[in-house]
């Protein structure tokens, strides 16, 4: 399998490693990582930075008895520990079509052969259907399926939009995107992707927090147009 050529970039990887990304955007970044050993490595480096930053934090003493209370809990726990699933578990056949962590979000939607069922798709525009996976304040994260040759109308999104290709592909002014590639769109871009002739299945998420309300927020919103 070829490795992706479009990546989230260091800023999004640091947001992911630090834990500042909302769930939907984290799902998009982590799904890309399942296809991309290079970004997995980059995130492990940024987690090492997190570990070093934690180590140099000024320690704040805990109330007396904290350790004793925890040790008492360990007594009650007994010897049983949280064992990882044995790594020798039988590899499923056929191998799963979609990687973790995405697969967990598709539970109940996959047919016996691992493909996405026909149910639950909702009309978005001609040639384009979607299934909502996560709804949060930040926006909606959904699967989007496009027929071949569909042009997505220019959309102004309030924030930053992440799209990971799962099957097929699309092209825009940045080039062509295939399985595993992650596209970052923001409002400064005349983002006008067109799906490949074979069509396209992708995961689409919005980075949250950019739509601010209240008088200050509204004022700021005018400047967030990057």
């Amino acid at each position, binding site marked *: 399998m070829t490795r992706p050529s479009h990546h989230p970039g260091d800023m999004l990887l640091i947001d992911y490693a630090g834990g500042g990304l909302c769930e939907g955007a984290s799902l998009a970044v982590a799904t890309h990582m399942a296809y991309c050993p290079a970004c997995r490595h980059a995130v492990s480096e940024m987690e090492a930075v*997190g570990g070093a*930053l934690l180590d140099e934090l000024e320690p704040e003493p805990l109330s007396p008895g904290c350790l004793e209370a925890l040790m008492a809990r360990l007594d009650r726990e007994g010897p049983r520990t949280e064992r990882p699933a044995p790594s020798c578990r039988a590899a499923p056949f056929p191998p799963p079509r979609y990687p*973790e962590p995405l697969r967990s979000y598709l539970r109940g939607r996959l047919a016996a052969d691992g493909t996405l069922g026909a149910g639950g798709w909702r009309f978005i525009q001609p040639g384009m259907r979607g299934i909502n996976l996560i709804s949060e304040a930040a926006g909606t994260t959904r699967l989007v399926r496009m027929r071949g040759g569909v042009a997505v109308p220019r959309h102004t999104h309030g924030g930053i939009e992440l799209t990971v290709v799962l099957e097929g592909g699309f092209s825009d002014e940045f080039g062509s995107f295939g399985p595993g590639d992650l596209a970052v769109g923001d409002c400064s871009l005349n983002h006008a992707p067109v799906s490949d002739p074979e069509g396209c299945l992708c995961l689409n998420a919005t980075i949250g927090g950019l739509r601010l309300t209240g008088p200050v927020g509204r004022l700021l919103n005018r400047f967030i147009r990057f």
Partner: protein
Amino acid sequence: MQDQNSPAADSDLSLEDLLVAVGRERDRQAFGVLFGHFAPRLKTYLRRLGCESGGAEELVQEVMLLVWRRAETYDPAQASAGTWVFTIARNKRIDALRREQRPEIDPDDPALVPEPQQPADRRIEVKESSGRLRAALKDLPPEQAALLRMAYFEDKPHSLISIENGIPLGTVKSRLRLAVERLRKALRDVE
């Protein structure tokens, strides 16, 4: 608790050795030493993320309980003890404070696109590179170090850090990029 055979009785042991001892032997003395090191730092971490003191201590206990339960999955060839504890604390606080899941890859997933080749044992490398990383952190220009801490200790993406601190997004990005570049060089030991 006063077991002289306990690895923790030897004070020269690294945090990594102690964590391995907890995983292999359920060594409580080793766990006590790890608690003494990490728990007060975890409390600071959680307080910075907005926990009030009592809540932070409860959450510290939850994190350390996960450290105890999962210690046998810790691999010193992959990460330092501090890095491993950081990822557990980060995921726990997302779960507890934001009530959100933390989507992560599964390293055993047959659908994962594999590395070109399996890396060799990196145990010594991990130890040395975390030393270089700590030194490089101390050498960072203050404005880069400040933004880096916000990226890890505030629950926001870089775009919001920019807005809330009145620093232009371009400046946030370039400072963070410079910081990441320097730290990455230190980790990889390249000049």
